[in-house]
């Protein structure tokens, strides 16, 4: 019995990580209707950025983290304004095709520079520390911290979108870009900021992932798939929904893994397909329909 409780607990915390994966994807779609196929590879890019900073430049982890976060913010802005903004006018296909191309380029660049070996980040021992809950359950500090980070970031983004000028600008631009311009909102810049924020969260997710486990250049697609499944399970339009979706996915995978180690990811896919079959709008949808 305790084993199952532990499994579910592990699943929830894994779900926190998946939630972090998914939030950036959800953000970019929410503001710009862009599904970034390179999303998973950008997580891996952040990881290897941090690895390069710590191993090649010999920076301490905290410095590498700051550097990578800042770098991904800038990359996100430049990517959106320089490349993705130019694909928005052509319909649905161009952004998908371009981000698919970016995915291929990132994967192979990383392969070329770092080789195919899985690597990880060392955080000076925190990976193995654990906390004792009620004397019966041992929960790792890192997974707990990841979950806390996920909750905090979700709350922060919810606050940003709900209560700040820029958040209102995001929502208005998402509703009606042309009328948003009439308000003085520069949509090109707003889109750039949205992607910048998305990639910063991606960077946080990547770093937490790499401290927890090893990451290889080809891991992008899997990260994308887990992020995507989290978004769909949770339902479109809500950050808390996405986080919840991540947890449901995490728990499903954890249970599947406990039944048989080869069935972890598969269990997640089954749950995803089941949601698609029986509740396609997800568990906590907040999609906006209608016009003014």
């Amino acid at each position, binding site marked *: 019995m305790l084993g199952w409780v532990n499994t579910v607990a592990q699943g929830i915390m894994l779900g926190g990580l998946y939630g972090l994966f998914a939030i950036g994807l959800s953000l970019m779609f929410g503001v710009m209707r862009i599904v970034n196929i390179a999303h998973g590879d950008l997580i891996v890019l952040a990881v290897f950025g941090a690895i390069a900073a710590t191993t090649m430049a010999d920076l301490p982890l905290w410095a590498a983290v700051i550097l990578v976060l800042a770098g991904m913010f800038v990359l996100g802005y430049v990517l959106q304004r320089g490349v993705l903004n130019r694909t928005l006018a052509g319909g649905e296909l161009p952004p998908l095709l371009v981000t698919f191309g970016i995915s291929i380029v990132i994967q192979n660049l990383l392969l070329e520079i770092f080789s195919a070996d899985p690597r990880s980040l060392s955080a000076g021992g925190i990976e193995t520390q654990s906390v004792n809950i009620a004397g019966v359950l041992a929960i790792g500090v890192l997974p707990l911290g990841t979950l806390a980070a996920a909750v905090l970031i979700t709350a922060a983004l919810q606050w940003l979108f709900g209560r700040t000028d820029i958040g*209102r600008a995001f929502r208005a631009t998402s509703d009606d870009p042309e009328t*948003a311009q009439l308000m003085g909102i520069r949509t090109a810049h707003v889109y750039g900021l949205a992607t910048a924020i998305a990639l910063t969260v991606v960077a946080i997710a990547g770093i937490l992932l790499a401290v927890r486990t090893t990451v290889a250049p080809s891991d992008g697609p899997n990260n994308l798939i887990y992020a995507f499944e989290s978004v769909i399970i949770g339902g479109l339009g809500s950050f808390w929904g996405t986080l919840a979706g991540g947890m449901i996915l995490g728990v499903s995978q954890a249970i599947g893994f406990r039944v048989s180690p080869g069935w972890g990811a598969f269990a997640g896919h089954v749950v995803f397909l089941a949601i698609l079959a029986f509740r396609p709008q997800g568990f906590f949808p907040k999609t906006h329909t209608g016009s003014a």
Partner: protein
Amino acid sequence: MTPLLQTRNLTAFYGDYQALFGIDLEVQAGEVVGVIGANGAGKTTLLRTLAGVLPCAEQAVRFQNRNIGGLDASRVVALGIALVPEGRRLFPSLSVEENLKVGAFARRTGPWDENRIYELFPVLGERRRSRATELSGGQQQMVAIGRALMSNPTLLLCDELSLGLAPLVVKDIYAAIQKLTAQGLSAIIVEQDVSLAQRMASRLYCLQEGRVSLQGDSASLTRERISQAYFGA
């Protein structure tokens, strides 16, 4: 006296299709100018071009002695021209309050803030937390006007405020507009209802197939002349 706004040979295209053919129009400071015409005559196109949604030549539009033709819509509103778009176009996922707040994004200084909007339109104050699209047509029009006012404009462009609204509601809306213009706000009012435009504006332009077919003081224009210009005899 140099006009507040002046267009010179203004042309506008939708792709290959030309919608405006050399419009010359001016608005003096503190004046209300009416633009009338049948559907498809180019009235909305004119306002959208002035607001910066559609591109045009730099010298074609002059505002406060500056050439502003071709500037982005977000720059134009920062300069002091605000558009109340045709069909209201409120942001569906934002509340009434939030729609108004977004209107202030350009951060221009001036007398207008949320509280003054609620004074002008009290019913909005009562329903400030509601989704903007849950309001009645007339109330939505008030939100749209309020949203435009939040940018503290010098020139207000109103595109068919009466569209889809009951006559009594239209009366209220235009009573509010009259209050604003009495305080010195300049405006261009686009309407299909000719008598409405004549009552609100001191001067009228009539558009027909993208060209100015008639212009003059509202008081001196006869029904006959307007009909001719409206339909193109």
